[in-house]
């Protein structure tokens, strides 16, 4: 059976309950290839049921829901299938399974969780804000995983006086901190007016980046390992047009 559901935590948990006994359950993500002849079911989100599932799962493992929340943020298309496998393992064991890495389902789930966590950590460093004319900060980026709002607490704690926008340009959404509240909103293209000095500061940063390098010790492979090229597009120091192309 192929399960279609609303891609929210409640939607997923509704589907989880419906599919629990189904050995061959397939969880449809946005672009699942439909398997011919396989039955389909379209599920209506049931928040009450979802809440029950949450409580039950929590009684087995207090932390498994935070694992789930990170799993659902993962950029891999099979994330729902993996999350299903993981929660099923928790439910069957009626206990935390995190450490049972010999279990394939658990192993993959933990890998995905690790990926999401790691990317959050990376973007604490790789986010690049631009100063807009109003003083608010704007950072376009394109993460592998759906994490823009998960970055907010970090930046809010260190820049409480600055409204900022973390714009996930590939998912066309943004996490916004307006100086008081935090919210997530769809955002395709931002109309941004830069402050008078923004380009100069970016210029200084590029200059700094060039000057602090030790050319006689070039280790490009290592640099790319730590800072993969797919992230470069929004780093002024790696991209001549980082500010101009958005």
């Amino acid at each position, binding site marked *: 059976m192929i399960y279609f559901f609303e891609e929210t935590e409640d939607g997923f948990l509704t589907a989880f309950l419906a599919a629990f006994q189904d050995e061959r359950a397939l969880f449809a993500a946005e672009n699942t290839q439909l398997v011919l002849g396989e039955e389909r079911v379209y599920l209506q989100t049931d928040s009450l049921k979802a809440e029950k599932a949450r409580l039950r799962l929590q009684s087995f493992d207090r932390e498994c829901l935070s694992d789930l929340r990170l799993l659902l943020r993962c950029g891999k298309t099979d994330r729902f299938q993996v999350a299903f496998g993981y929660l099923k393992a928790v439910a069957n064991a009626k206990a935390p399974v995190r450490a049972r890495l010999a279990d394939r389902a658990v192993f993959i789930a933990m890998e995905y969780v690790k990926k999401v966590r790691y990317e959050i950590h990376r973007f*604490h*460093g*790789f986010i690049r804000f631009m100063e807009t004319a109003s003083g608010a900060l704007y950072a376009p980026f394109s993460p592998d995983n759906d994490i823009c709002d998960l970055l907010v607490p970090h930046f809010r704690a260190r*820049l409480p006086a600055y409204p900022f926008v973390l714009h996930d340009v590939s998912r066309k959404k943004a996490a916004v901190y307006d100086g008081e509240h935090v919210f997530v909103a769809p955002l395709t293209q931002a109309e941004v*007016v*830069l*402050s008078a000095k923004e380009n100069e500061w970016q210029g200084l940063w590029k200059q700094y*980046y060039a000057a602090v390098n030790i050319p006689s010790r070039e280790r490009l*492979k290592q640099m790319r390992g*730590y800072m993969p090229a797919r992230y470069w597009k929004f780093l002024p120091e790696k991209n001549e047009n980082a500010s101009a192309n958005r």
Partner: protein
Amino acid sequence: MKNNEQMFDFWKLLEYNDSMISQEKLTILTESAKYDVSCSSSGSARKNAGGIGNGYVAGCCHSFTPDGRCISLLKILLSNDCIYDCKYCPNRVSADVPRVSATPEEICELTMDFYKRNYIEGLFLSSAVHKNPDYTMERLVLVVKKLRTEYNFHGYIHLKGIPRADERLCREAAKYADRMSYNMELPSEQSLKLLAPQKSKQSLLLPMRQLTQEKRQFVQDKKKGLIQGHFLPAGQTTQMIVGASPEADGQILRLTQALYRNMDMKRVYYSSYIPVVHDALLPEVGAGQLREHRLYQADWLLRFYGFTVEEIVDEEQNLSLEFDPKCAWALRHMHLFPVEINRADLAQLLRVPGIGVRNAHKILQARRYTRLTFEDLLKMKIALKRAKHFITCDGKYLGAKNDTTVRGLLIAAENGENAVQLDVFGALPKTNEQKIMLSTRQNALMALTGEL
């Protein structure tokens, strides 16, 4: 996206104008600071108290340069205009280079604006000795004080102290900085005399000791609730240049051990000498990065593995380039091995080549539930390439039959890894290192075929 001319704000421009550093100045002051190794921003949990910034205990990298190093802090000199004459330094008084000094405002604005854009985690500020030590230290203190009190900056600040400056300035600096460092530069008094004539061991150790004692006092007083605030939450570090002077690794590491024991150093950094300046007193080639790597490995043994320097290397000796220092130690103490994984205590496990701190703890935990076999170790993702020659699992031994073969296999294992590392280091300058690699590879081959 374009700058909007209509939004042009005259007052804002005025406010900015005099304190934005020029590209030329930034370049000169950065070029001069970049050989300092430490860029770590870890160890401070400073909270945001209104204003901008906080600490990130684990440290955070914001970018990586083509040399593979992480950019965490804005590493810059306040001035490169030096009255001292350290032979290895491009800014020494006798060198003919352009001299510039930044104003405290320029450094503050630069830090704030870089920080706000999330380019950096904080500031690593040092300076050449400009005019005299007190004047320089005063300026440095002025910058960090301004940043903390006027600009309300709570991000990370690492300040490099100036030797021979007044101790009150040193104390004042510690109130505002997260970390301070006085670099040992060279591992002996003789070398300092020869290569950095205006510095002396005493002039460097004195402020270090002062800070150590004051920090200990501060921690005690804070525990008792007598005082609040910060005093170097991320402690002190120091750095030594390796290979510019003739000291052996054994001597360097003895100094290291003393610094960890007596000065509560958080880290000792080693920087393999890169020839930037030509001088008859200095070697023409840089020290190999493998030597630097071995020093760091030995440093870890001192800090986390319960080794003393006396166990690792004799005073006049260098570390083996063929084996990592733990392997080398184990090979000298074969009578202590193999140890039984199910019985050995933590200290013994930590001495097994190839078993690190984390894996040692994993083993302790896992064996509470079951008698561990080699299969279990593999499942726990514990590499056995080196370890298998030094352990038994449930009485079973999978290592080589005699010490000579163990040696050979360890060299082979090491070469496998160094091949990867060499790759990582990219194009290495032609140093002894490559010759050594070659010779060990031959050794390894011979060992495998039984000729060694």
